């Protein structure tokens, strides 16, 4: 009898029914989600948008819950239907609240266009991908029905009802592909009006067909590779074919390893002969660029024409520059200096913090939403896997994209930058907001060099106690005998080869055997985060690490190095569905998983807590001291590798690098001193307004406000300062960096800021790296981080994204120069480089309008500065605070226009042609580290005492001094009167960019004493003018001798400044 029921249940006939449920807002309420979709279509194609006159979105659920009809219907009503809000359509299953017919035609009746021409676009998930709604449905039915439903299936999708006489299948297909669906994880169908009005889609057979299928089952066997007889070319071909990404030299080393007699003897005794696919995949992951940073660790022969600042022979680029800087600078607060995970730094006697930046460029190019979502998820888990586990307390994100109004033809498979931005924005929103981690800082860089490969940097800061019971939290420890546990999401076919694929420049991948797209189940991730921190505090595990790139192969492999070996059965890992091959189990990178070492005596409690918190644990095996990484699948040995060789046997790359020197500076537009000044008169204001509207400068408020930047209640300095009182609409201006207050009982804070200057890469990557360091540090100094004091804590994190340096000695040289520029700046400022990340293959090879194209990004270095703030009550923001305050230029005053935002704008816009004068030709800003240390030591509180009198501080970066002043006026609406001295090159002074410079304000009463202090300490300053009540930014020329105003150069209304800067409504 039981058996009979079982088969009925599968068929969905007899006593049990399958259900298709469509729910949508009642027609009385405005469908804002549809409105949003329409807006996205409008941004994509205005004419297509005009064809839709009316639209309503319905959620669709498919259910196979084997309970009797009389139980199912009330449960569906309870779970899926909010009667105040929604109409529900289920075919004949249950009565509808809708009008006469009880079908979708009731909704169409409510459209103002009757009779109209209606269409439906239906989307549903592809088999095997994560369906969060489906998972929530099953949990909800379990709650309501009061029992476990382990055999139940539920999936979700959407049906978009649209109306428009001009809509046709072609247009709808574009909407489906480009806006409504993500084809990597979803499929779609168009449903004509006649079918929408019928009930066919609710028939049992049809629902059965629509319910998700388990992906086609593959064989669970392993593949063997006869490496020993393969010639060089065959080795390389094999690596290519299998997407291992291993070079000929690496394949050769592996071939030799397997043919060593001692190794063969061991393998024979374990029942293994030739290498298995599992073993080759482990090598592929462990020896990937992603994990080993092969280019960074290469030996380099460097050459340049003019100078020998950089050694000609570099034994190991990373060790000689970044690592060496950390060692030379060295700080007692550096508790752990692991480059692979995050470093760990002491915050005070009790607590420590950590910071990590990751990139998700390749996945985000394919799937912007999923790529960014999983990027933020992954870096959160890196922090969770840092030391004994830290709690993520803030996120920050930087995106580099082509301009959002890019109008030239797109290469095949390249998404429009606007779609990428829209997708990554949603990804970060969901990744951060849903797991309760605030996004406190970020940047957007627009440059068409990023068309082929957008850069998506995701960073996270974490906080942890320094001790948990007897244990010190900064170190990982694994003992032989500890259990190997995997917690979190189950393994599926998604995310196989993700990190190795990112080394390929083509997007045209054969994805038939795997789903490179990865999704995040944010609820599972949040549950895992909560559970692990609780387990840490109870001392239930000994080590934890993110099961990220490379899957189990790397997470278990790295921990195995701590004990000296591991043996596990990968067949014990929980999977989403059967039929996964052993190698897939080992390398799948899908999300929400962590790997742990749990002492055997703690296992019962560990498992109990996991069960209580709704987190799944797979006990895979144990750590050993055998010196080997041993893997079984159902008792059969599938991998048995020497750990030492696996982690240390990779042959070092040897590369050549050649630097041709800087290109020559542009010369057009040079004129006489008088012509230069004349050209500023009248025109200066317009130039400023144009600059403020440049995508790299304009307000990002539309983006920032869609991220939760305050959850966890720690925020002190937010991405924007906002003036609320007195106005109905609050007005906001930019802040330089974010500050959080991680402890309730302490007034200490943490500041985080970014520096990124890729445009300078085209001039000299050395300068670019220096500028990035300087900008990042200036940003945190602005908000109140310490510098130069005896107990100050300031660290720099470097994140390199490069066009493949293996393509040419010039590209390699750009990497070398950036590393040395970085090293010079960090050493000069005495700040350790503590952790970092590199992504080296940011090129695209494909076709554009039938012709082959190669697109490479600008060499890009994101510097993140993190610093401790001794007292958050002394934090500062950029806005001018009161009328009558004195405005100063503080620090460096040597600005250059070469590589500036102004020059970039002038190259784009032919209509503005100012005269720019300089007898020496165009120049760049150049650093002076001695000056920098003086200025920063004063701002950072190491010398002097009047820094507390600074009422505002804003760094001068993109757009130059005038933009910095304008940004400080935006929120409060005051004006400013500025003076330029006769003889100063006005264009360079107002719009040039450089190093070590700030705009500061001080109240009049302290101006004399602060000027005296600056004078004594050798801090360069220049009085620029005052904050005034009339809402104008006025610039006039003065005679420095007599201090008399000679003439007004230009005057701009602050309202115009504000509207030029905030293009509100442009995006959303």
């Amino acid at each position, binding site marked *: 009898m039981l058996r009979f029921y079982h088969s009925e249940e599968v068929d969905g006939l007899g006593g049990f029914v399958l259900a298709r449920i469509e729910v949508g*807002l009642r027609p*009385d*309420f405005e469908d*804002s*989600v549809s*409105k*949003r979709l329409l*807006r996205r279509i409008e941004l994509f194609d205005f004419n297509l948008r005009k064809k839709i006159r009316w639209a309503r979105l319905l959620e669709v659920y498919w259910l196979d819950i084997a309970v009797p009809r009389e139980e199912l219907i009330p449960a569906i009503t*309870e*779970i*899926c239907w*909010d*009667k*105040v*809000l929604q109409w529900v359509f289920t075919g004949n299953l249950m009565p509808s609240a809708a009008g006469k017919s009880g079908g979708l035609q009731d909704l169409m009746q409510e459209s103002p266009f009757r009779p109209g021409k209606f269409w439906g676009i239906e989307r549903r998930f592809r088999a095997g991908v994560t369906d*969060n*709604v489906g998972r*929530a449905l099953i*949990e*909800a039915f379990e*709650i*309501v029905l009061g029992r476990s439903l382990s055999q139940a299936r539920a999936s979700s999708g959407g049906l978009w009802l649209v109306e428009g006489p001009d809509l046709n299948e072609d247009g709808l297909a574009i909407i489906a592909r480009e806006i409504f669906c993500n084809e990597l994880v979803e499929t779609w169908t168009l449903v004509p009006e006649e079918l929408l009005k019928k009930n066919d889609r609710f028939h049992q057979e049809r629902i059965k067909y629509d319910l998700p299928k388990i992906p086609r089952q593959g064989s669970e066997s392993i593949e063997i590779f006869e490496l020993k007889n393969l010639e060089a070319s065959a080795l390389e071909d094999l690596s290519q074919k299998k997407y291992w990404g291993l070079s000929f030299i690496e394949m050769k080393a592996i071939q030799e390893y397997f043919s060593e007699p001692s190794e063969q003897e061991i393998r024979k005794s374990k029942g293994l002969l030739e290498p298995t696919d599992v073993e080759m995949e482990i090598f592929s992951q462990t020896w990937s660029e992603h994990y080993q940073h092969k280019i960074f660790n290469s030996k380099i022969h460097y050459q340049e024409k003019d100078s020998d600042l950089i050694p000609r022979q570099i034994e190991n680029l990373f060790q000689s520059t970044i690592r060496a800087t950390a060692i030379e600078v060295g700080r007692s607060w550096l508790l752990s200096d692991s480059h692979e995970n995050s470093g760990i730094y002491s915050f005070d006697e009790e607590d420590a913090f950590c910071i990590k930046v990751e990139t998700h460029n390749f996945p985000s190019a394919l799937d912007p939403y999923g790529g960014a979502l999983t990027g933020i998820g992954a870096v959160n888990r890196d922090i969770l896997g840092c030391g004994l586990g830290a709690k993520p307390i803030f996120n920050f994100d930087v995106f580099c994209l082509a301009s959002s109004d890019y109008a030239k033809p797109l290469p095949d498979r390249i998404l429009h930058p606007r779609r990428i931005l829209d997708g990554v924005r949603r990804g970060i*929103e969901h990744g951060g*907001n*849903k*797991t*309760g981690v605030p996004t406190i800082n970020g940047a957007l860089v627009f440059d068409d060099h990023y068309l082929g490969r957008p850069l998506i940097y995701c960073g996270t800061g974490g906080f942890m106690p320094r001790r948990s019971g007897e244990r010190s939290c900064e170190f990982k420890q694994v003992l032989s005998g500890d259990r190997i546990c995997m917690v979190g999401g189950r393994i599926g076919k998604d995310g196989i080869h993700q990190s190795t694929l990112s080394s390929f420049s083509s997007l045209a991948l054969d994805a038939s055997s795997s789903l490179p797209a990865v999704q995040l189940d*944010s*609820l599972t991730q*949040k*549950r895992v985060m*909560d559970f692990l921190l609780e387990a840490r505090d109870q001392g239930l595990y000994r080590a934890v690490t993110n099961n990220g790139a490379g899957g189990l192969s790397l997470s278990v492999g790295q921990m195995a190095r701590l004990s000296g070996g591991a043996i596990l059965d990968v067949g014990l890992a929980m999977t989403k569905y059967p039929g996964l091959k052993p190698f897939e189990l080992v390398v799948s990178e899908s999300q929400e998983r962590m790997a742990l070492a749990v002492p055997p005596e703690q296992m019962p409690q560990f498992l109990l807590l996991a069960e*209580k918190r*709704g987190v799944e644990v797979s006990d895979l095996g144990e750590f050993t001291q055998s010196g080997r990484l041993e893997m079984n699948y159902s008792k059969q040995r599938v991998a048995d590798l020497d750990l030492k060789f696996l982690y240390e046997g990779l042959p070092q790359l040897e590369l050549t690098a050649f630097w041709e020197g800087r290109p020559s500076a542009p010369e057009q537009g040079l004129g006489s001193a008088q012509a230069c000044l004349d050209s500023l008169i009248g025109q200066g204001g317009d130039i400023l307004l144009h600059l403020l509207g440049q995508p790299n400068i304009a307000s990002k408020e539309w983006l920032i*406000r*869609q*991220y*939760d*930047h*305050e*959850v*966890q*209640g720690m*925020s*002190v*300095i937010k991405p*924007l*300062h*906002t*003036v*609320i009182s007195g106005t109905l609409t609050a007005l*906001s201006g930019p802040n330089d960096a974010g500050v959080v207050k991680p402890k309730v009982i302490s007034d200490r804070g943490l500041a985080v800021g970014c520096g990124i200057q890729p445009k300078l890469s085209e001039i000299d990557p050395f300068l670019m790296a220096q500028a990035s360091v300087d900008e990042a540090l200036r940003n945190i100094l602005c908000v109140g981080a310490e510098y130069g004091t005896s107990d100050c804590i300031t660290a720099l994190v470097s994140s390199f994204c490069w066009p493949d340096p293996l393509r040419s000695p010039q590209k390699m040289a750009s990497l070398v120069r950036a590393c040395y520029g970085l090293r010079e700046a960090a050493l000069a400022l005495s700040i350790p480089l503590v952790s970092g990340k590199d992504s080296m293959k940011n090129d695209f090879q494909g076709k554009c309008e039938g012709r082959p194209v190669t697109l490479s990004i600008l060499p890009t270095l994101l510097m993140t500065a993190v610093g401790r703030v001794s007292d*958050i*009550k002394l934090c*500062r*923001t950029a*806005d001018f*605070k009161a009328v009558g305050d004195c405005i100063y230029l503080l620090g460096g005053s040597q600005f250059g226009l070469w590589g500036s935002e102004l020059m970039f704008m002038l190259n784009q816009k032919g209509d503005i042609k100012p005269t720019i004068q300089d007898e020496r030709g165009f120049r760049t800003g150049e650093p002076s580290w001695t000056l920098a240390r003086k200025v920063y030591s004063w701002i950072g509180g190491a010398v002097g005492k009047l820094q507390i009198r600074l009422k505002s501080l804003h760094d001068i970066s993109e757009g130059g001094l005038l933009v910095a002043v304008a940004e400080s006026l935006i*929120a409060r609406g005051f004006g400013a009167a500025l003076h330029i001295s006769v003889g100063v090159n006005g264009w360079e002074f107002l719009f040039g960019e450089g190093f070590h410079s700030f705009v500061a304000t001080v109240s009049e009463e302290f101006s004399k004493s602060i000027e005296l202090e600056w004078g004594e300490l050798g801090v360069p300053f220049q009085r620029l003018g005052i904050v005034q009540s009339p809402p104008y930014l006025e610039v006039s020329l003065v005679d420095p001798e007599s201090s008399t105003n000679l003439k007004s150069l230009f005057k701009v209304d602050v309202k115009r400044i504000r509207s030029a800067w905030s293009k509100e409504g442009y995006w*959303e």
Partner: protein
Amino acid sequence: MSGLKIRALILTGDGLNCETETAQAFQMAHFESEIRHLNDLISEKMTLNQLSLTYSVIAFPGGFSFGDELTSGKVLALKIQYRLGWNLTEYVARGGLVLGICNGFQTLIRMGIFGREVSITHNLRGHFINKWVKVTPHGNKCVWLRGLGTFEVPVRHAEGRIILGSTRRTEMLDKMNHLGMTCLKYDVDLNGSEESLAGLSDSSGRIFGLMPHPEAFIRWTAYPDWTSQPARASSPGQGLAIFENAYKEAASAK
């Protein structure tokens, strides 16, 4: 009175994420805060009786319970109703107080605390918004808002548009106004919420739910323009008064 502990229970689990700062807000208002995982309360079979004896306040903090799937707060509401079966109206009748913030408020709405004709859905602009707003209490029924004038708080939500059943809208609104339930409104139309409602209370005035986050403004340095008045840096924020009101009420009942 002294030495008598007045306890606040702050729920967590299943994607809630504002439990720490909410607990801190109650702590600052002199409560003894306890953060408890929903699953632990379920496995202990915590009854309404025990709840009343142990805690003067239950708080449902903000977050994304069950990832906001199947409408925000829905699955959490079902879990509380089916697995714990607490009757919150009964709980406040015995002298308890209930607070729901953001996702916690959505959960209270889904539980039917404010009547069967009240619901909440996506903001009119269709997206998540994090912004500071002015809100003003209306009427004097809500215990939590006693004595408060207009104050500022951040909102951080995608689904804050309060909806009343359309067939009986006017009737419902009159009734809710009459009962003092429409207790907190935005000064400007933020998200298309009915009557610019930011929060609701039940007819007893003891259950209070709101979309803005008062727990995010318990210190002055959380205010987005605090640096223009640095002399106030050590002051508490305007959101604290809500928690202090609860303490006064709970202390007077002891």
